[in-house]
């Protein structure tokens, strides 16, 4: 418990709940040496091009959390119009739509939902978004090649 000394109650509570009642398809485990850093795994949602994939992410709670949004990044390479080559995610609640009432759990759920419903109209990776709009099937095939599933 030494690592959690001085940690806000909010973070402790959230962590406990994440461990006790994990969300289906999502795991978030705090790093041993830093209770603000989480190793996250999201499984590709059913009926999405990403089904069958397991995506590793990193999540970091900044000093101001929950007044500032957590920093989240895909570590696994992914072909998605709202995620760039470095794994950065274009998601409104991680930016200006952040609310302190949101939690790690809700953020990860939103990211999972983003995998089910890519939004090529608000792209981060422009080339991917373009491909997604012009030829969705080809884009999905590309997803699978990146996943090494074809």
């Amino acid at each position, binding site marked *: 418990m030494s690592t959690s000394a001085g940690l806000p109650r909010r973070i402790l509570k959230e962590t406990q709940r994440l461990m006790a009642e994990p969300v289906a398809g999502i795991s978030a485990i705090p790093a041993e040496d830093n209770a603000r850093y989480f190793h996250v795994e999201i499984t590709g949602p059913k009926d999405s091009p990403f089904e069958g994939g397991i995506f590793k992410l990193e999540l970091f709670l900044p000093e101001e959390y929950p*007044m500032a949004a957590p920093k989240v990044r895909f570590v696994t390479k992914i072909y998605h119009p709202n995620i760039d080559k470095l794994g950065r995610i274009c998601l409104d609640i991680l930016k200006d739509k952040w609310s302190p*009432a*949101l939690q790690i759990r809700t953020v990860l759920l939103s990211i999972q939902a983003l995998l089910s419903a890519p939004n090529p109209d608000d792209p981060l990776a422009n080339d991917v978004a373009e491909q997604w709009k012009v030829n969705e099937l080809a884009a999905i095939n590309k997803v699978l090649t990146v996943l090494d599933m074809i």
Partner: protein
Amino acid sequence: MAESLEEDYTYSGDDDDDDDDADPNDYYGDECMEEDQEPVDEREPDPEYFEYKCLTVSEAKTFLQRQVEELCSKLKVDKRSALVLLMSHGWLIAELENRTEQDISNLLIEKGVLARHVPQAKRSVCGTSCSVCLQRKPRDEMKALLCSHFFCKDCWCKQFEVLINNGIASDLQCMAIDCHIGAPEDFVLSFLHVETIRKKYDKFIFRDYIKSHYNLRFCPGTDCTMVAQADKPQSKRVDCSKCKTSFCFNCCGAYHAPTDCETVKKWLMKCADDSETANYISANTKDCPKCHACIEKNGGCNHMQCSRCKHDFCWVCMGDWKFHGTEYYECSRYKEKPDIVNECAQVKAREALKKYLFYHGRWENHARSLELEAVTLGNINKRIQEKVMKNEGTWIDWQYLLDAAALLAKCRYSLQYTYPYAYYLESGPRKKLFEYQQAQLEAEIENLSWKIERAEKYQRGDLQNQMNVAEKRRQTLFKDFFPT
């Protein structure tokens, strides 16, 4: 001291309008004088003339307060509503005063001043756990906006502090998910106890007011807090009455007549992007005739091999090296059509670059001349000092030299900003006219600069005449090309 001298000088009946002074009344004064002396000028208004005021922070606040009150009484709404409405409409009261009541209340809902539905008391009122920090709190520490989303005092305070430190002030909102109810100033201030953060909030709120205002602009001068106010926002010159920075009212960049804001922005971006690199590339490289890779020659031998496509060619004639060796030194013979070079698209790019460098070179050169002439001004001051000490005339007698230097700076500054204008001007009779006038202006400016540097050799009348000619040239160009 200097000011009183200047006044004396103006009274001496000289019609040179040296408008270094930012006071708009002086502008006005000059105009009146010109009217008296040269009625011809009255028909064509000075295209640079612009009416504005420089307000201090407290004057600007009073002005804004008055506008809020005006809208309050016109629409019969409270101050907070009036403020939000004004900010979302550029403070144009005219756009709001004739709206219907329904319209206004819809706007207020959209802007988060009013709640869409009258909210019922939420569970969190009865419970005493704050959903942000997840801690139990006494009931009286739970606060909410009119949306009844209750959070504890500490969380509100932390939230506002974090956001204010990120520069967010006028659009602070409720912390609940997807709730857009805005936090009024008194609500925010009730949680801010640290003096520095209150000051910051105050500063940012004021900044947001000014930034949203159609006819108020911050002076862009370093650490300057003055606010310029114009009746009609136009891209005209404002001289800050406090820090003397002169800037364009519309874009708040450096004053850039006769070029317009868009063009000068494009130009400055272009300059920041590629001027130096482009310069070097143009001077030191050629493109591979086959793959157009940019090649820098790093040895004496003219037999080049492109490191990218392995194409062998001659640096001098840019022809294929294979055919080069068949006849000894073929490329020293003049050929009518060096077609390989001419055909490639890269030539066009180089042509464009050449054009840009032409204008950029002149732009830079005048900027440098302005700097050097500032040094000259220092020398003039020293010379005047010496002369006055030696009893060769009084300070006032030599004042005209300073006026000449000021006018030179003004003319040269305008000349500098004619180059971006010319760069983006399409070829045609208008460009020809522009370039003609530009050349005339340039010639007179150089004459003036020459005479100022050798002021001892020239009569005062001669110099003054040259000043008039230069300023007339400048005005002619402005009348034709700078929209009033």
